[in-house]
């Protein structure tokens, strides 16, 4: 009978490992998450546009956008007198994307398995 196939070695950590991590720190603040969400929803935005939409002063928005830019979660381009910001999800790279998709797929599969034994009440 065939023996079980042994697992290969663990992947080495790559050149991006550093800490404390600016991406996680950037995402940990709820106002910054809201700003990131708003930039994502609009496609691109200036600090003035975001301050008009959110209960945050323009000055605070600028500081948050700078933190997000330092974490490479947004990129800025000067258009006229203001910077226009857009999402640049490079730090949320393939590994996180994979985890999002694979995690969701397993949630769906395990839910189907569970419902086989616990059908929803009608």
């Amino acid at each position: 009978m065939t023996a079980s196939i042994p697992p290969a070695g663990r992947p080495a950590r790559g050149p991006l490992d550093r800490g404390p991590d600016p991406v996680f720190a950037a995402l940990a603040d709820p106002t910054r998450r809201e700003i990131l969400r708003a930039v994502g929803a609009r496609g691109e935005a200036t600090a003035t546009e975001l301050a008009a939409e959110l209960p945050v002063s323009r000055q605070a928005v600028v500081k948050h956008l700078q933190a997000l830019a330092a974490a490479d979660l947004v990129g800025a381009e000067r258009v006229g007198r203001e910077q226009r910001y857009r999402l640049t999800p490079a730090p949320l790279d393939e590994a996180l994307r994979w985890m999002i998709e694979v995690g969701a797929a397993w949630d769906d599969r395990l839910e189907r398995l569970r419902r086989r034994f616990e059908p929803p009440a009608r």
Partner: protein
Amino acid sequence: MDPFTITRTVRIDADTAAVWASVANAEGLAGWLGAAVEVDVAPGAAGRIVAHDGTARRLVITEVAEHRRVGFVWWNQDEPADASRVVISVEGDGDGTRVTVTETVDPVAVGALGGRASALGPAEMGDLLGLGARWDDRLGQLLGAATSALVAAGA
């Protein structure tokens, strides 16, 4: 926590033998693991799965521990470099059964991912995604509506 490993678990109100029957053979796996499953659940056996979204996968069973665990390597038929290892474990939990799944990117496939560690270190990744928590609850708390935009933009 390994950033390239996902773990999910579910508790089912059914006895372990009944749940094991849904893991131990293709007939049991069909309908939940994939829409269609063709494989002899025995070490070394190769097979096919058609996922619920229609994608075709190949798999090779790597281990079977009777009434406890099935392990396999699988990959999208069109992307053989992106293989991952899956282990499905079944254990009694009171008068119910707990099913735990882990999926780990095969290191060979890390090269296909660009060989990069995530900008989020392993500890942060684990905290971000919450071992055993629903991904959308944890990630949703942190990213909200930006998630789909971020994932889509990263394509």
